């Protein structure tokens, strides 16, 4: 029988530290598969800032930088400017990108940095134990929003893809999700497209990936998938917001 699915060379053999059912693991695998399929593992340099994925340097089988919270796009800029032919990506959570790192992500897009950002949106701070993130939904409980997020008190959740799609340098902006098998396949396509845009030197690409956090949502992994579908999809519609070749 032919092997149709096996662990990609893009991942090391290390077991992920992520909680059971956390879809970070799925996203890691997709990124690694794409890097292998595009045959760029030897040129890839990843940047993982503070967050649950800060240990990504143990998992991706390519050169990696661990970066300060929110600063991965700046670190990636430094790397890409030194090695323009390398394939540079950042792998960031929403607490990192949409909060402390908003300036860096906006300006990386604004400068049209030829890097690829994998933006994992699970509507919460994971590593630090479930605090409210800028992407936490209205009414969603978090350890720093124990009564549920109240827009009157701290605003509406941030729609990053829509925001970044207004920036000319952001040539590829797409929001996808990994809450079921078919969407996982679509996510992989989007990741591949974003990296291809970097390889063609067209500019900045970002894939926002809706992801689960069973532990901090206080749910089982399966309930997490359902919650994402019923609550996150309506507020964070999936789809492409920018892709090269569009008639402006």
């Amino acid at each position, binding site marked *: *029988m032919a092997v149709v*699915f096996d662990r990609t060379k893009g991942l090391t053999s290390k077991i992920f530290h992520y909680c059971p*059912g956390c879809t970070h693991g799925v996203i890691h695998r997709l990124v690694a598969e794409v890097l292998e399929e595009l045959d760029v593992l030897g040129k890839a340099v990843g940047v993982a800032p503070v967050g649950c994925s800060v240990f990504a340097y143990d998992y991706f089988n390519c050169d990696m930088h661990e970066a300060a919270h929110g600063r991965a796009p700046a670190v990636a800029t430094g790397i890409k400017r030194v090695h323009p032919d390398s394939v540079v990506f950042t792998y960031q959570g929403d607490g990192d990108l949409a909060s402390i790192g908003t300036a860096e992500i906006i300006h990386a897009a604004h400068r049209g940095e030829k890097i690829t950002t994998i933006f994992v949106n699970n509507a919460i701070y994971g590593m630090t134990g479930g605090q409210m993130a800028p992407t936490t939904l209205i009414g969603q409980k978090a350890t720093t929003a124990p009564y549920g997020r109240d827009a009157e008190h701290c605003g509406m959740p941030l729609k990053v893809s829509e925001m970044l799609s207004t920036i000319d340098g952001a040539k590829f902006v797409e929001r996808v999700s990994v809450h079921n098998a078919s969407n996982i396949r679509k996510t992989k396509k989007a990741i591949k497209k974003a990296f291809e845009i970097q390889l063609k030197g067209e500019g900045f690409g970002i894939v926002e990936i809706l992801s689960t956090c069973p532990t901090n949502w206080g749910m089982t992994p399966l309930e997490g998938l359902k919650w994402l579908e019923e609550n996150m999809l309506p507020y964070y519609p999936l789809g492409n917001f920018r892709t090269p070749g569009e008639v402006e």
Partner: protein
Amino acid sequence: MAKAKGKVTFIEDRCKGCELCTTVCPVNIVVMNRDEINIKGYHPATVIEMDKCIGCANCAMICPDVVIKVEREIKK
């Protein structure tokens, strides 16, 4: 009509018993092995009726911990 024949193998000690794979199998054969506990203390996922497997790899697609390897052949 050509018939797809699949086979899945689980690296049991990587499994964290999250059960995601049990929700995507088109022939509903992926189940949790309640009789066993792996090195992490979880019930690992498994397939008992392997003959029904069609090798679609949905289970491997959604597995967050790269537990599942999938093989497939098309029988004429």
